[in-house]
C-alpha cells in the first residue's frame, strides 16, 4: 500500500471512530518512507497464540520493545500474558510453555492492547513473519473497537528473503526462521517461544540486517518496507 493511501485511510478511521484507544493510535501519522531509517522509531512485536488463524485462535502473550533508530532501548521492553477464553489447546501449551493456570492469571486483551497501541503510535512495527502479528492484532481491534488496525511494518523475514534472492543465494524455508537468521548474524540466542525474547530477537535481527545493508551513508526507510 502506498504511503499516501495509508495516510488517507488512517485519517478516515480516525474520523470515523469514537473515543477509544484505537482512535488515539490513529491520531499519529506514520513515519514517512522517505526518511532515513536511522531517524525513525520502531516497535518490535511478537505474539504467542493458540494457533495460526486470527479468526479462531487467541493471543496468549505479547512482547514488545522499542527501537530508536539503530538502538534497541531495553527500558521499553514489555511482556504481557493475556487471559484466554476456554482451555489452551494442549499442542500450543507445549510450544509456549504457557499453562491454563498462568493464562488465567493474565490480563484482559482489552487492557493489554491499548498499552501496545500507545507504544506503536507514530512508529513502525517490526515482526518476523509479520502477517501473524498484523492479522491477530487486526482482528482483536476489530472485535474490541469495530475497526481493523493499520500499520506500517518491517517484516524481517521478507527483508531476509529479498536479501538472499538479490544475492542469488539458494535457501530453504527453514533458513528464514528467526533463530536460523540470528545465528547467521552472530546474534545471541534468547529463549525461544517467549514473546519478549522473540521480539528482542526480531529487533536485533533488524539491526543486523540494517547494518549489513547500510554502507555507512544511511538508507531510506522505504528500503525495508
Amino acid at each position, binding site marked *: 500500500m502506498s504511503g499516501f493511501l495509508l495516510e488517507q485511510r488512517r485519517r478516515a478511521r480516525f474520523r470515523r471512530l469514537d473515543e477509544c484507544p484505537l482512535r488515539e493510535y490513529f491520531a499519529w501519522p506514520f513515519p514517512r518512507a522517505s526518511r532515513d531509517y536511522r531517524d525513525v522509531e520502531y516497535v518490535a512485536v511478537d505474539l504467542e497464540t493458540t494457533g495460526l488463524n486470527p479468526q479462531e485462535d487467541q493471543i496468549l502473550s505479547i512482547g514488545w520493545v522499542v527501537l530508536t533508530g539503530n538502538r534497541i532501548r531495553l527500558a521499553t*521492553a514489555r511482556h504481557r500474558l493475556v487471559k484466554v477464553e476456554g482451555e489452551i489447546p494442549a499442542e500450543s501449551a507445549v510450544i509456549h510453555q504457557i499453562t491454563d493456570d498462568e493464562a488465567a492469571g493474565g490480563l484482559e486483551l482489552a487492557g493489554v492492547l491499548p498499552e501496545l497501541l500507545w507504544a506503536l503510535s507514530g512508529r513502525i512495527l517490526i515482526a518476523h513473519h509479520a502477517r501473524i502479528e498484523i492479522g491477530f492484532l487486526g482482528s482483536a481491534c476489530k472485535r474490541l473497537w469495530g475497526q481493523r488496525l493499520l500499520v506500517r511494518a518491517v517484516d524481517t523475514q521478507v527483508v531476509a528473503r529479498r536479501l538472499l534472492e538479490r544475492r542469488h543465494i539458494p535457501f530453504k524455508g527453514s533458513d528464514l526462521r528467526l533463530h536460523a537468521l540470528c545465528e547467521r548474524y552472530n546474534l545471541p540466542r534468547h529463549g525461544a517461544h517467549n514473546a519478549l525474547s522473540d521480539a528482542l530477537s526480531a529487533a536485533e535481527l533488524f*539491526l543486523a540486517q540494517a547494518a549489513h545493508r547500510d554502507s555507512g551513508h544511511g538508507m531510506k526507510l522505504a528500503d525495508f518496507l
Partner: protein
Amino acid sequence: MDVELIEIREFLASNAPFDRLPDAALDALPQRLSVRYLRRGTAFPPDDDDTPCVYILRRGAVELRDDDGNLIGKLAEGDLCPSPCGKGAPNMAGLSGQTAEDTLAYLLPCEELDRLREAHAEFAQHFDTSVSDRLRRALDTMKDDAAGTALMTVRMGDLLNRPLVQGGPDISIEQAARIMSEARVSSLVLTNDDRLLGMVTDRDLRNRCIAAGVSPQEPVSGIMTERLHTVRADTLGFEALITMSRLNVHHLPVLDEHGVRGVVSTSDLVRVQSANAVYLVGDIHKADSVETLASISGRLTELQIQLVHSGATASQIGQAITAVTDAITIRLLELAEAELGAPPVPYCWMAGGSQARREQSSYSDQDNALLIADHLKPEDDAYFKTLARRVNDGLDACGYIYCPGEVMASNDKWRQPLKIWTKYFNTWIKRPEPMALMLSSVFFDLRPIHDPEGLFGELAERIHTMSKKESIYIAYMAANALKHRPPLGFFRKFVLIRGGEHDQTFDIKHRGIVPVVDLARVYALSAGLDEINTIERLKAAGASRALSSDGAANLVDAHEFIGTLRMRHQAEQLKRGEMADNFLSPEELSPLERGHLKDAFALINTMQDSLGQRYQAGRFA
C-alpha cells in the same frame, strides 16, 4: 523487571565488574541498556552516540590498536570496552578500535555507570584503584582462600596427593601385594563398581597371610578388613588423627559423594606437621648419604603443595625451597669432603640463577660454579674436579637435574681461580656478546653457598668496580631483557600474543616471570646494587634512581601475583601426580584472575617499553 530480561541479567552477572553488584542492582540493570549491532570492520566506538556510553560486548570482537597501528588488545564476549566515561574507567586515549567480527553490544550510559559506582563500593573498586592495588588485593584474596597446613585446618581431601590405588575383590593376595609394591603404597582399597568392600594393609599381608600360613594364591577378600572406619574428604586432620589413635588403625579410606577417593595414613598426617622447610633442613644436616638426601628432597613437592595450600606467596615458597637446596648442597659438600679430605686450597661454591635469587620451585635445574683461591696448584684441580662431580651428581640424584647449558662446577670452564673469574667478567662486561648475554642470567645472579674463607667478597668487589666503569654492557643487558615479552592479554579462551596471534596455553615462566627477573637485574646492575633476589632488587631499585618507587611497587605486585599463580598451577599438577610445568591455559583461570593477569602483563610491557627507550635498546638487540 520482566522475567524475560533475566537472560541479559545473567549474562551481566557472570562478567566483571558487574558480578560485584548486589542482586537488586543487577535486576534493574538490563532496563538501563540499549543494544547496538556493529558490522565487522566498523570503527569502534561509533561516533554517533548522543550520550556517552560504555560498551559491553555481548557477541563479536573488537580490536584495539595504538597510534602506530600495533594491536594492543582484543575484546570479546563479556568484555567491557574502553569508554569516554572517565573517572578512572579505561578510555580510548591514544587508541583506535575496529570490530573484528559482527558485534552485538549493550550500551550503558556513563551517567548510569557513575551512579552504580557511587552506590556500590565493591563495583567501584574495579575502576578506581590502581593496577597495583588491584593486584595486591588479588594476592590477599589468594592468601585468604588458602586452606592452611596445620592439622587443625587441613582437610583429608587435600592430603590425597596420588591417584587411588585399588583392586577388585577377586584378585589374589599375591596380586594385591604386587599392586601395592608397584604403586609403593602400604594399603590397597578393594572395590566393586566404586563400592568400598574392604582394605588390606602391609600389616595384614604379614599377620593374616604369611604368619598365618595362608597361601598367597587365595583371594585377597579372605584377609581384607571389611568393616572399615572411613573419613570424609572434608574431615579435619586432627579429627582423623583422633579417630586413628582411638581405633588403633593406621589407614583410613577417604570418601566423598562419588565414593572412595583415596587412603590417608598416619604417616601422611605426621608429614603435614613435618613437611616444612625447617624440618627438612634439620633432616638434611643429619643425612649421611646421597640416598638419604634424595629421599628428603623427594618431599620438596609436598612442601610446595602445602605451602601453596597455606597461602604462601611465590617469594615465600621460593625462599623455603631454596633454603632446602642450599642445605642439600652444603651437606653434599660436607659428605664429599669427609671422604676426599680437606681441600688443598680454599674454595667457594657458588650458585647461579634461581637458586642464587632464592626463587626456586621444586624441580629446578642446577646452576653452579666453583671459585678457587688463586694459589691453586695445577695438581690440586683433580681434588676439586672430583668434589664438583660428587656434588653435581648428588644434586641430580636429589632431583636438581644437570644444567642443560652445562653451567656446573664439574665443567672445567666453571671451576676456576679468582683471577680467571675476574677475566671472565671483564670480558663479559667489556664485550657483551650473545653468549655472554645468555650466561648473564646465571652469572650476574651469583651467590656464595659455601664459602668458609670468604673468597666471594673479593670477586663481587671486582665485578662491581669493573661494571661501574663500563656502561655499554647495561645497554646490551637492557636489550636482552626485552626478549621475553608478556602476552597482550586474553581473547575468549585463548592467549593473545603480540602480532595478534592466539595460543591455547602460555609459558608463564618465560612470558611472565623471566621478563620481571630480567628487568630487575638490569635495574640492579645499573644502580650498582648488591641484591640478588628479584623482589629485593626491585625494592632497592625503587629506593634508588634506577626506578620510580611506584614502578618498583607495581612490578613487585605483578611478579608476586604471576609467581603465585604459577606455584598454584604447579601444586595442582604435583597433587595429581603429574610433572610440574609452566604451561597455563586461560581456562584454568577465573575471569577475575584473567583480568588481574592482563593488568600484570600490561604493567610489565609498559616497564619494558620504558627501559627500552631509556637504553635505546633497539640498537643493541
